[in-house]
């Protein structure tokens, strides 16, 4: 390792830590997320409102390679079963924050939480 290597190492580390700290602030959200969004191949196929006190609910999602099962409990969601070789999505477990995303690449399924989209205007 040369001197420049070490400088680069430090620089990357600092940038990484700096961005990490920034992102913690940037993505900090005091309000709980209110819905689960499930996308397949880039298209939203289902949004499910989240509510405190709801018991476990399971949804079947048709992915590229077959049926996956998504489980929702109170304010969190997880991939219960998915027909993919690596099982990364299943092993990820529960997610409960907006920046967490479950991605099952072989099935092209993306699951994340967000707030209900703010509206531009209200008619009434």
């Amino acid at each position, binding site marked *: 390792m040369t001197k420049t290597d070490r400088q680069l190492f430090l620089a990357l580390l600092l940038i990484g830590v700096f961005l990490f700290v920034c992102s913690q602030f940037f993505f900090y959200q005091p309000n709980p997320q209110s819905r689960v969004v499930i996308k397949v191949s880039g298209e939203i196929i289902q949004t499910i*409102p989240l509510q405190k006190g709801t018991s476990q609910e399971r949804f079947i999602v048709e992915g590229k390679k077959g049926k996956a099962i998504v489980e929702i409990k109170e304010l969190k969601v997880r991939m219960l079963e998915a027909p993919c070789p690596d099982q990364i999505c299943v092993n990820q477990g529960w997610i409960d924050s907006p920046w967490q995303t479950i991605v099952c690449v072989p099935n092209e399924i993306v699951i994340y939480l967000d707030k209900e989209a703010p509206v531009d*205007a209200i*008619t*009434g």
Partner: protein
Amino acid sequence: MNKFYLKLGVGIFSVLLLLAGVFFFLQNQERQLTSEQFLMDTLVSISTYGTDTDFLQQVTEKAFKEIRRVADLTDRFPSPGTIAYEQSDVVKINENAGISPVSVDEDVFKMLQIAQDYYELTEGEFDVTIGPLMDLWGFGRETQKVPTIVEIQETLALVDSRKLILDEEKQTAFLSQKGMSLDLGAVAKGYAVEKAAQVMIEAGVEKALINAGGNIRVIGKKDNNNAWKIGVQDPRNPSNLIGVLSLNNEAAVTSGDYNRIVEIKGKSYHHLLSARTGYPAGKNMSVTVVALDSGQADLLSTSLFLLEPQQALELVSRLNNVEVIIITTDKKIMCSPGLREKFEYRSGEGYSYDQN
């Protein structure tokens, strides 16, 4: 040495390039301009988007001017002696009821023509000559009272769109019976908003949102990937949205039984009166119409509100580029087939959303 200068040169060049890029980026950043004015008894807000704020400012002013022009033409109760009084075609027509035809502005004539069409389509439930009935209940006046059946029957004799005579050639309007009067409340706001939208589109605006107290007209898309999100209010809970519409280049107008209500002896009455019975229509809580033209959407939302839900859906199915969301008094939410993809139902206390 040579190499050093080369490196220095490349360094300076890249910094300049970066600065130029940042400058260019900031120059072409999309900006939003929002202005608000109180017009037509409501708060009208116009939001425009573009890179040139001066241009947006000018266009917004033009649009407001157009709304004010239509507002003046259709005002029913301007104080005598004011400019608005002089300019109101509706006042002229009403004052000349049973006397003589009045030549009117092109836009007023158009509004009356559309109103006549909807009189036919709703089989007389919607009637633009509802003025005397509105006055009897006291809408737009200081005092309100519940009329007696006899009073209503007497007044209904003065409500009849067949006695509104429009002469297309001379562009005149004539109420053939004394005591009749027009009320363009169900069309003027939507029409004005549409005129304003057209002014903006002609000027070259590609992205804008006009909101005249819930009468909404969007121009263009919100951005490349997303439509404008328009919330539909829960009729029984103003802080809740029953659902969200995704609209591009369209208008959405809602008529609800919770708007413009009067309370008489502890009971509340809304202003959407049936021209057949003379009483506030009672089948629906709210009707939201999505159409390409805001004027049409406004008129239709009132007209459809007066009809039975099934009748309303049937009428919509016969019209092109018109969709509707109906919330009935028994809290059923119905949606015309073409709108199901654009309407995302959320939730609300006690409602049931009928997907079919």
